[in-house]
Structures are given as C-alpha cells and as structure tokens.
C-alpha cells in the first residue's frame, strides 16, 4: 500500500500546485491550463460512453455546444451569474442526452456513431435558425466580465470531478457491467444485465461534464457562435486524446489531454501549417501502432489495474 500512498501524495502535490498556480502564473499560463482542464473533462467524458461502454460517439461536442448555448443564454438574456449558468449548462446537456439516448442507444457500432454525428449537425442548424434566442449565425455576445481565474478553478474542479467519477465507476460492479456491454452486449443481456438502462446511465454521465465545460468556456470567451461550439474537430480531438492515452482507463484520457494539448500548443505557435499534418500523423500512428494507447499497453504488459 505504500505505492498507493505515494501516488496519492503525488496527486495531492499536483492539485496543490495547480491550485496555487494562478497566483504566480502569466495570463497565458492560466488560460492554457484552463484549456487543459477543459480537454480533460471532454476526453474523460467521452471515455465513459465510448472507451468503457463501447458506444463510440462521433458527435460528443453536441453536449459541449448545448451546454455553451444554455449557459450563454441564461447569462445574456436572464442575467444569471456564471456559476449557476454553468451548472444549468450541465443539466441541459444531460436532458439532451436523455431525449436522444432512448432512440440512439438502440443503434450499434457505426450506426450509433453516425447518429451522434448527425445530432451535432442538427443542433448547429437549430441554433442558427432560432435567431431570437441564440443570435443565429451572428453569434451571442455576453456582458464583459473578467472571471478567468474563478473559471479556472471551476473548470479544474470539473476535471477533478470527472476523473473521480471515472475512478469510482471503473472500480465498481456498475463499471464492470458497462464493460460487458462493450465486450459482448448479447452475452451481457443473456446474463441478466439490463444493458439499455446501463447504457443510458453512462450516456447521461458522459454528457454532464461537456455541458458544464461548454457553459464555462462560453462565459470565459464572452462570445459564441454555432461554428465555434459545435465543431467536429473538437469531437475528433477528444477521441484522439483518449485513444492516445488509453481508452477504458482512468488516467489515459488525462494523459492524452495533457500531452496532445501541449504538443498542439508547441507546434501551433512555431509551425501553424504543420499543425493539422502532425495531428493527422498522430491519429494514424496511434491507430496503427498502439490501438490501446500508452496506458493501455502498459496495463496489458504489466498487468496493471484499469485504475491507471
């Protein structure tokens, strides 16, 4: 158990450093770390439904966008403070997941992936259409507010929360049941596991984080438009982060988010044109060379628990 205590101590140290970070960091440093937190939320949430449960979602940014619009509308039109608006963004995303979960989770494999892709496009079209509420294609501006540091903490707490929830799920029988859906859904049902209900729970859980992150991001940036909160590229990025780090593990999505975000920032600032090329190369390399991701390979080779 000393290893466990060492890991906990290291974790506590990281949390303490991150909590103290805004006191001495540059504006850029805080903003970049805030983005890392956001990617951790997105990647870990995607991991719940797609890495753990095996339902690969190609439209997960839909929940981010739904949360962003719900939060932004509440702030801009109803004058809500940003924190309750962020929670409302999470609730909106979960409600959306509830409505579309029933029909979409009946679909398996590529059909589910395509349905989720379609959902995202439909939402983007809808927010463009309802101009009165959303500002349509012109976007929606929020009142100016400098809250980057409190939002840094809120996003950091969200990232910690999603990671904790993932840990709790992966070490529970509920988590094992989700994995049986990924492994063999027919066998899971024949063994008395109510796969429909379990899939739905995983789906709802996977929508909450992106909804909150979307609302926080909208507040922080002060302006949103359909193409900025529903981009397919965001879904792709979260998928790549999870695949790189190791799907179905606790820390894989976190590792993927940190490494790929840093790589992206470094490359982005130096060679703007190489960036998409490099990202594409990483996708190909991960899929071909290590489909289980970094932690997935270590987990298999050294027989580590999924809690890595």
């Amino acid at each position, binding site marked *: 158990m000393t290893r466990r205590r060492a890991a906990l101590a290291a974790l506590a140290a990281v949390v303490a450093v991150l909590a103290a970070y805004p006191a001495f960091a540059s504006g850029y440093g805080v903003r970049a770390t805030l983005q890392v937190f956001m990617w951790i939320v997105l990647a870990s949430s995607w991991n719940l439904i797609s890495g753990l449960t095996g339902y690969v979602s190609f439209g997960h940014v839909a929940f981010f966008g739904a949360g962003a619009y719900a939060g932004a509308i509440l702030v801009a039109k109803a004058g809500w403070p940003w924190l309750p608006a962020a929670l409302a963004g999470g609730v909106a995303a979960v409600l959306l997941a509830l409505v579309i979960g029933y029909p979409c989770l009946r679909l398996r494999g590529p059909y589910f992936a395509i349905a989720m892709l379609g959902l995202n496009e439909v939402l983007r079209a809808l927010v463009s259409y309802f101009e009165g509420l959303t500002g349509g294609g012109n976007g929606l501006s929020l009142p100016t507010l400098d809250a980057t540091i409190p939002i840094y903490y809120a996003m950091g707490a969200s990232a910690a929360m999603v990671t904790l929830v993932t840990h709790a799920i992966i070490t529970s029988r509920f988590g094992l049941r989700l994995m049986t859906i990924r492994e063999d859904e*027919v*066998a899971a049902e*024949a063994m008395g596991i109510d796969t429909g209900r379990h899939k739905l729970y995983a789906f709802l859980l996977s929508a909450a984080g992106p909804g909150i992150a979307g609302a926080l991001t909208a507040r922080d940036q002060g302006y949103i438009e359909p193409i900025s909160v529903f981009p397919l590229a965001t879904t792709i990025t979260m998928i790549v982060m999870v695949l790189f780090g190791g799907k179905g593990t606790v820390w894989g999505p976190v590792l993927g988010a940190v490494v790929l975000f840093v790589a992206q920032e470094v490359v982005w600032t130096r060679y703007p044109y190489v960036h998409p090329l490099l990202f594409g190369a990483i996708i190909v390399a991960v899929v071909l060379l290590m489909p289980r991701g970094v932690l997935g390979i270590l987990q298999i080779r050294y027989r580590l628990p999924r809690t890595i």
Partner: protein
Amino acid sequence: MTTPVLEIERLRKRFGGVIAVDDVSLRLEAGRIYGLIGPNGSGKTTLFNCITGVERRDGGRVRVSGERVDGLRPWEIAQKGVGRTFQVIRVFPELSALENLLVVTRGHLGGARTRALELLRFVKLEGLRDEYAGNLSYGQQKLLEFVRVLMRDPTLILLDEPAAGVNRTLLNDLLDAVRQLRDRGKTILLVEHDMKVVMGLCETVFVLDHGEKIAEGAPGIIQTDERVIEAYFGR
C-alpha cells in the same frame, strides 16, 4: 400435476422463407436433464434463442415456472431464472476470470465473491482468476462460461454444446456438475452432438428436424425411432 419449469407451446420462428422453428411444443419438469438433438440446421440454437429472448418468436408461447416470458427482453428472462451458455463462447474477454463471474451478480458483493471463488476452484481456474478471460484456453473459457451461468443460480439452465472442444477429464467433471445440479432440483436442457454424452446424461431427448419436433422420449427409445434414423442418415 406440477407446474413445468419450461413450457413451450407451438413456438414458431422464420427467417425470410426458411421456417427455423415450426410449431414446436416442449414441457420440462423440475429436476431433470433433457437433451435436444437434431442434424445441423434443424433449429436447436434458434429454439434456444427464442426461449431466451435473443430472437423474437413469430408465434407461440413460452412459460417459465408458469409465467409467460415470450416478448420479454433477454435480461428480463434471465432474471426469471433462465441461464444459458452459447455455442460460440461468449465470455467477456477483457474482464478477468473473477470479474466475469462477479459482474453478473446482484446484491451483496462479498457473498458473490466467496461464491465466485468457490466456482473457480470447482473448475480449477482459481489460479487464473486475475487473468483476462480472453487469454484463457478454449476449454477454460468454456468452463468459465459454464460457471458464470451458475453464479446467478438459475432454475433452468440451457447449455449449447457443452462437450464440444472440452477434453475427456474436464468433460467428466462437467457432466458430474450437471448431474449435481439436477440433484439439487435444477432443470437442464442441452444441445449436444456427442451422442455418448446425450445418451449417458439425458433422461428425455427431443429430436428436431427442419424445425419440427419429430420425436421425444427416453434415449434408448429415440435411438431406434425410424424418423430419427431417417433424419440423421437419410432414407
């Protein structure tokens, strides 16, 4: 007359123009071992799938301990006390052997763990309890699938070719286990191609051919039935 554990009335299933199960009726009493035999494609596995809800039936009724189960979802039927294994092994490959057993349980986890370890010991897999099920040998996976069914303590157990690919020593243990289950009041229906197994184990045998039940009776009588011989060897 006691309520049968499984009662099938005029069950029908068709795939396009092929009638896979044609008006089959069966009655299984508690505490007995039944065999289901027939040439390839005679509808044995389809019948299993219709009983367990994996396939939707096109007609007929299925009752488990007197309760209608046709039309229910597979997991609901499983929760009514029906357990099954598959012809093609369906363990959860990226769960450990122990997790494969724990995951199908409900209620107190500690009790489930004790029982799971007992069952792993019973099939001599206790040393491999933390190994991924996908890394076990074919025979070991087969045994794991068998004890996974027992974890839920079902009243009716459907075994789809339990003997296929299992070596003699293991097979004898497995058959002993099936007899013990019967002695504890469980009802077993097994599909099997190994006639020695069927004749040595089953008290009643049903024979399917082209989706129809063509014979039913004690193994000795079935062996001499003309329609059965014809179904297997041709006229």
